[in-house]
């Protein structure tokens, strides 16, 4: 199997697992993820608790499944924010050009100076920390990547013959942009979205770990790690399980992104 195929297959499997787990959690869970059971504090993996239990005796497997929802949700919304804002800004800036381009890209540059954690610090000071602020922080921090990507694509496609032809036939600007230009930029966007999802998952975990993310009673992976931190010497499972889940998800998105890039763009295939 070639490297490209391996990336795609492995990444696809990992993400499939996460998505499958999240979907499964809606219809079936081995235990109530919030049920406290002080008789089973820090249980090791067993038939009853497949991945063990945490400090409240809650089932780790059930919590990891529920956590998969949050990870996907935060990641997808954050990247969605970045994608829509970034596409809009990049496309308009690249297509219109001139002063507007200059101003818009300057503003994007300012965002570039605020990576997710810095943005979250600022937002947490202004609003109370939570899932929404984390998503917005990660999303805004990811805008510049998409804006620049789209702008570059638009610039490279803008001068091509078929676009000029479309214009000459009297198509109006938004139509030219929508029909002729943007479709050409889809594959780099898809690749970047997948890679950005990897970054977003890491950022969300870091923010929850700092107490700037998901509220405490929602079993997100970052929260589980934050809580488990104090108990690592008592039981490794509450910290190992979500840590692994984060790692495999990040790995999945980045493998998928790499695989997609090589697959969609034959010229870089090596």
């Amino acid at each position: 199997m070639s490297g490209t195929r391996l990336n795609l297959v492995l990444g696809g499997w990992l993400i499939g697992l996460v998505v499958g787990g999240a979907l499964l959690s809606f219809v079936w869970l081995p235990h109530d993820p919030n049920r406290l059971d002080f008789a089973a504090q820090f249980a090791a993996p067993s038939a009853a608790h497949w991945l063990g239990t945490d400090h409240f005796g809650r089932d780790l497997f059930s919590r990891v499944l529920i956590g998969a929802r949050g990870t996907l949700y935060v990641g997808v919304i954050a990247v969605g924010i970045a994608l829509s804002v970034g596409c809009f800004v990049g496309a308009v800036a690249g297509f219109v050009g001139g002063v507007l381009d200059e101003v818009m890209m300057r503003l994007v540059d300012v965002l570039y100076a605020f990576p997710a954690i810095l943005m979250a610090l600022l937002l947490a000071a202004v609003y109370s920390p939570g899932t929404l602020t984390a998503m917005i922080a990660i999303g805004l921090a990811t805008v510049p990547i998409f804006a620049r990507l789209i702008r570059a694509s638009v610039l490279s496609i803008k001068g091509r013959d078929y676009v000029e032809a479309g214009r000459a036939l009297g198509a109006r600007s938004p139509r030219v942009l929508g029909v002729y230009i943007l479709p050409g930029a889809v594959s780099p966007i898809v690749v970047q979205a997948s890679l950005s999802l990897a970054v977003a998952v890491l950022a969300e975990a870091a923010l929850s770990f700092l107490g700037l993310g998901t509220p405490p009673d929602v079993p997100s992976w970052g929260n589980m790690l934050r809580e488990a931190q104090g108990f690592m010497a008592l039981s490794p499972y509450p910290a190992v399980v979500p840590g692994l889940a984060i790692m495999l998800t990040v790995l999945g998105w980045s493998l998928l992104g790499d695989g997609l890039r090589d697959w969609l763009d034959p010229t870089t295939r090596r």
Partner: protein
Amino acid sequence: MLGYLTRRFLTALVSVVLASLLVFSALLLVPGDPAVVILGMNAHPEALAALRTRLGLDVPPAQRYVQWLAGVVRGDWGESLQFGRPVAALIWVRLGVSVPLALGAATIACLIALPLGIWAALRRGSATDPIVILASQLGAAIPSFWLGLLLILFFAVELRWLPAGGFPGWDRSPIDSIRALILPILALGLGQAAVMTRMTRAAMLDVLGQDYVRTARAKGLPQRSVIYKHALRNALVTIVTILGLSLTNVFIGSIVIEQVFALPGLGRMALTAIGNRDFPLLQGAILVYASTIVMLSFLVDASYGLLDPRIRYG
């Protein structure tokens, strides 16, 4: 080229000023009152009013921003509400922890990633290449704070080789200070090394595939000479970009790592400043981070011209 650099520097400066405006106006939206945090739970209303006046919280915001920005330019960053000391001095002391941490992590990352990335590129197609790739993919996927926790558990608690956290201070014990930074640097640097390895490998492959390298090889130049004289020099441009990006990453990553290792760095100060509503300190700290990132990207752009003779700026 000088014209380009000046123009590029000016845009960077504009970005910094816009960033300062963003920070300042964002913090204006906070309905908060820092005085109550300073005085604590059982504070008396009269004492609160007196403190508010003393802190200058009754001046209109626009005026406060202009005063603040003018002060920042002169080196007067205001006074921390919590500590009652100049913000610039507090930040300076904290940078004494954060900057060595970031530089150390970036150095470790380079020391691992550059040789490994080049090596992997040269052995493309061999059995070791995919192992390096997979290892670097895995390494990049490990959350740094989680790695930090594992390092503490192993090297500090189990083996007792290195301190688990805290920082004695450079003036008191330089050796202990270095020891205190080893684990944080590893936690931060290893993940970054993984990211950089992949980028270096890709950059190297790009260059190796280009015509002039093929030509050099075809001319029968020895492999070593091809790599060092031609390929590496030309890959340097990309590697400098990677380096700039890495410095940005570790500098921002240090915020989380400082929290894990209880290091009195800038990031931890910013986090506590949020809880304490110490906005002069918080906006100072965020401004330092944001302008460092902007300036790093300026330096990367500026160094292109020096490194790649083919690039000439109009």
